[in-house]
Structures are given as C-alpha cells and as structure tokens.
C-alpha cells in the first residue's frame, strides 16, 4: 500500500483548514494506512460489524413498492443495522482507529442524530468520552436521538449559530478539534471534510456496496440498471456507489434534497444545481454560496440532507459523467415515506425517503437497488405533524 492517500478527486478535495489541524490530519492519515494493513485491526472491525452491527444487512426485494414503481426495487437494508442507519459503519471504524491512536476523547457533529447516536454507541462500547455537536433546530426535530445519545453517556452540545442545523454543528466540532487536538479525535459523519476524511469514510462505507453487489447478483442474477442513494454529505451514497463504479452499465444516481423546490433557493442540492464550486469545512467541492463566497443555508425537511456542502468525490464523479445527481422535494419525500410504511411495513428515514421517491418518480428501469440508509423512528413527530396526523402531545 502507498504511504499517502489521495487528497484530491480531480480538482476537488484538499485540506483547507487552519494550520493548527495539519499535524492531526497527517497523524490520522498515517494511522489509517497502518490500520488498513493491520490484520488484527481489520479482524476486530469485521467481527464487530458482523456480531454487533448485524452485518451483512439484507438486500430485500420490495414487491409491493416495485408494483407501484413499475420495476423491481431492491432495498439495501441499512435501516436494520444496530442504531438504525449506515452511520454506525463509519463511527465504529473511526472510534476503533481513535483508540488505536491513543485518543481518549471523541467529538462528532450530527444533523439527523444518527451519526451522533452511532458515535455515542461506539464510544460506550470502547470506553471513550464523547461530545456531540448538534444544531438546536435539529435537537428540536430529532428529539428521540438526543435522548438516546444522552442515555449512551454522550454530552450533546447545542449549537445556536446560523440556521442551527448541520453546517453549524460541523463548524462547532471543527473549532473544538482545533482547541483540543492533542487528545481528541473528530469522527466526521460523512464523506466530507479535509483529506484524508473523504477517503476514510468512503472506505468504511464501501461495505454497503460490496454486499449489495454480491447480493443482487445472487438474487437477480444480474447487476442492477441503477443504484440510487440519498446524498447529504454523501457517505451512504459513496459507500454503495464505489463497488459499482467499474460496472459501466450501472447508473449511479445521487438524490439530494430539493427542499421547497430547487428553483426557490430553499434546498440542499449543491451537486444538482452545479454552481461554482467552493470551500466548505476543509474541502473544495460543490457547495451552496452567494456571489461573494458566503456559504448559504440549506433547507430540507430531513435534517441529514440539510447541508450546503457535498463530498468532493461526488463532485468528481458528477463531472466525469459517472454519477448523476437529482433532487427530490420535501413533499415527494414525505409521500414516499408514507407509501413505504403502508406498502412494505417499513418506516424509512426521511433522508432515505428521498432515494425511494426518486425511483418511484423515474420508471423505465430493469432493476433498481436503493440504499435504505436508515429507519424513520426519529422522524415520527416531525412527519406526523407535516402529514397532519395528530401524534401524542410532545
């Protein structure tokens, strides 16, 4: 193996961070390369993924949903993982790495709360201190996950800046890291951030695609026509895409949040809109910004997609024409959420509902594999409210 990881995907990526963090990024990269070559580390990770997380996650042919879609829809069931989303694949791997690096304190950001819960879980298991930054608006709309994190022993720090959502939570986590870099590892929750994070997160999430590829070959006897995943920062999507990248006939479809409609500006779809690229949270990629380069607030009903940035490898896959990116509105996602619950008895996360909505809205496929990145329990209060179904008073 090489002694360094790629820092760029075409023009995207890089390390746009304060000098204070550079030694930590170098240390992280070296530790990751060492761990990748260490059979004992890999064996421990694999055994935890199998026995603790419950991998491999099933690939499920959703027959009733397929009827509505007009083509077979296979769901990659990351919602069945321990803690209820794909985020645990990354959090566990990075927590093990932090332990190996001798770090005693973990910080993480979270939007939907899934990455926060996954990090808090990994820290409980590995006996690490855990501090999770979360926008106060997300604390409001993802309340059950806040309670879970606290139960797991994590400290949840509310972030009141800006729109009080994921972007500000990432910024607060980075500021904490700048200050406490000696004993602290930052478990970033998506395939974003300065190098080497996008590569580390991709490698920890590629198991989704590796399993899905083998499973679809076995169940359907062929590769899918399309692989579809929602894109917040882009971790479940890059994880499921990468093992299919060399399969030229498989279309890779990333689904971003159109929010109230891409044309309204109130969305979270920088890859779809494809404006000027820029720097956010340490890397150069597709972002939402104004003329001056001030970062704009994103808008999505789904806290995990409510982010104005995107993973740099996605921007590169897009530019090369290898993957395409589309956006689904809040309303379409809500409809897919409700439909999936009724037809399949599966309550998907609002994030994942965007991917399901896209396959429903785009027929004419032989076979689709859709990443069901997480389950929707966390979203119940918000969705019941939006669907006009009275929930229990909260």
């Amino acid at each position, binding site marked *: 193996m090489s002694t360094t990881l790629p*820092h760029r995907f075409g023009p995207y990526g*890089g*390390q*746009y*961070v*304060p*000098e*204070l963090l*550079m*030694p930590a990024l170098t240390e992280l990269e070296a530790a990751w390369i060492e761990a990748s070559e260490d059979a004992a580390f890999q064996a421990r990770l694999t055994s935890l993924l199998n026995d603790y997380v419950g991998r491999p996650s099933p690939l499920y042919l959703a027959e009733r949903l397929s009827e509505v879609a007009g083509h077979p829809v296979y769901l990659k069931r990351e919602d069945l993982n321990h803690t209820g989303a794909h985020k645990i694949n990354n959090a566990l791997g990075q927590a093990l790495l932090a332990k190996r690096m001798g770090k005693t304190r973990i910080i993480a950001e979270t939007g939907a709360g899934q990455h926060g819960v996954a990090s808090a879980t990994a820290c409980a298991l590995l006996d690490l201190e855990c501090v999770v930054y979360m926008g106060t608006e997300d604390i409001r709309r993802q309340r059950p996950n806040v309670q879970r994190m606290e139960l797991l022993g994590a400290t949840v720090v509310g972030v009141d*800046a*800006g729109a009080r959502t994921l*972007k500000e939570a990432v*910024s607060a986590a*980075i*500021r904490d890291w*700048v*200050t*406490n*870099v*000696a004993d602290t590892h930052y478990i970033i929750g998506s395939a974003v951030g300065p190098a080497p994070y996008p590569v580390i997160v991709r490698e920890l999430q590629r198991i989704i695609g590796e399993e899905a590829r083998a499973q679809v070959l076995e169940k359907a006897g062929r590769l899918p026509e399309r692989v579809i995943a929602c894109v917040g920062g882009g971790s479940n999507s890059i994880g499921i895409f990468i093992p299919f990248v060399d399969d030229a006939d498989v279309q890779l479809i990333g689904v971003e949040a159109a929010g109230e409609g891409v044309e309204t500006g109130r969305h979270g779809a920088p890859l779809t809109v494809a404006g*000027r690229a*820029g*720097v*956010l*949270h*340490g890397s*150069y990629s597709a*972002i939402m*910004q104004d*003329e*001056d*380069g*001030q*970062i704009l607030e994103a808008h999505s009903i789904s806290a995990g997609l409510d982010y104005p940035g995107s993973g740099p490898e996605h921007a590169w896959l897009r530019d090369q024409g290898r993957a395409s990116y589309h956006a689904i509105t809040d309303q379409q996602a809500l409809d897919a959420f409700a439909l999936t619950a009724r037809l399949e008895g599966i309550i998907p996360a609002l994030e994942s509902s965007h991917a399901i909505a896209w396959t429903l809205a785009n027929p004419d496929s032989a076979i689709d594999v859709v990443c069901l990145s997480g389950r929707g329990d966390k979203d119940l209060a918000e969705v019941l409210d939006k669907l006009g179904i009275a929930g229990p008073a909260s």
Partner: protein
Amino acid sequence: MSGVERIAAAFEAARSDGRGAALMPYLMSAYPDLDTSREIAQAYVDGGADLIELGIPFSDPLADGSVIHAAGVAALNAGAHVYESLQVARTVSDQVPVVVMCYANLVLARGLERFADMLVEVGASGLIVPDLPLEEAPAALAACDQRGLALVPLVAPATPDERLHQIGARARGFLYTVSVTGTTGERAVNDGALPGVLARARAHTDVPVAVGFGISTPEQAAAAMQAGADGVIIGSRLVRAVGEVAPADAPAQARALVEAFSGALVVPGRDS
C-alpha cells in the same frame, strides 16, 4: 514601495520608535457598521497601531472563537459585502500597512488574480488566509508575489520543525505565530511555552515573527514582546470592546485600548 517593503519598514519603524514589538490591532470590517469601522481604523492609527489587520466578514470562520465569529455574522446580517468591506482599507492604507485577513472561499469565489488586484486597488500590503495551509497556498503565493503583496502564513506550537522550515521559507511580510492551541479569543494566561515557540519560529524564517490569538491585556502583550515577538496582534479584545458600546463611542473606546497596548510595548528605560 511594495506591500512587502511597507510591512518590513513598519516593523523597523516600531523599533526605532522605542518599542520592542510592533502593534497590530485586528479590525472586523463593517462591524458594527461600515462607517464606524472606518472610524475605528483611524482610531487604531491614532492610538499607535503600526500595522492593521483587517478582517473580512465570513459566514463560517473556522479559526475564530465566539467574539470574532459573532462580529462577522453581525456584519453580514447588516448587509456587509466583500467589496465594501475591503474598501475600509483605503481609510488608513496610506498611513500604516494593512494586512487583510480573509477566509479561502471568499478569495476563491472572486478568483485569486482578481482578489489580489482588489487588494492592490485598496492599498493593502498583505493577505492572511487562515484556512490556506502550505499545501493549498502555492497559487495564492504566486498571485501575491507578482504584485508585491505579502502572503502571511500561520504556524502553530505543534507545527513540526520540517514543516516550520518550509512555511518559514515561504513567509512574506511576517510569520504569524499562533500562541495557543485553539481558535481566536481572549485567554486568561499567557502560555509559558511562548519563548520556545517564538525562538523555534525565528530559527526558520528571515521575516519578523508576530504572535496572535489570545492576547487580551497590555501585560500579555508586554510578555509576548519579552518572549521575543517582533509583533503583537490583538483581536478579540478589541472586537469585543467595540461591540460593548454604542457605535458613536466605539472609535474612542478602540483608541484608548490601542494606546494602552502600544504603551505596554515601549522598551523599559527608553522613553522618547
């Protein structure tokens, strides 16, 4: 004189003026509003600033603590734009060198060349980009070098020697040494490691070594000078002071503080 030369001359002049280190107060442009920030810039000069660091408001300032972050956001909410914020440099740039502090995305959005041209237009002498480390800096360095502007790099206490050497060799104007591990913000105590950090920085560069982040009292400024700093940067303390009073009183407030810091940098026994 080029920007690089003006900065060198300002450090020299501070010394021949009887001060052990040059004073470089930080100003958040367009805070609390554009006009007041121009007056504060002048008040800094009148209070004894040798150089001025002019911060351009940014939505996501990762290297800044709560005071400067909040000031930048307040300026943006009041409608600050990059172009107007840069114009504030004009108020004082024929009196002292102005070094613009601006996050990478604002520079890249405009385009390196165009941004550097704007710096020249407003009379700025240098540029600090806190999220543009060595690896990402070559193009910006070339654009600045072409125009005689100083691209000032930052180093931290934990920067390894090898890296410090590379950064020191590419430093223009001065080397910005971050005194503490953390974001900008006032801190109660001066780091006892400062003399070592400064000596290490000095060993790897030919330009003056300035120290910033955390210095919030005249005593701390004097201690930084005694620890070997050629320049002392005061940020959050001044930005906070400006925000604590009505805009009309902000310039006088700023001037009084800058005078106190300037006085603390006079070399003992050398009254003029």
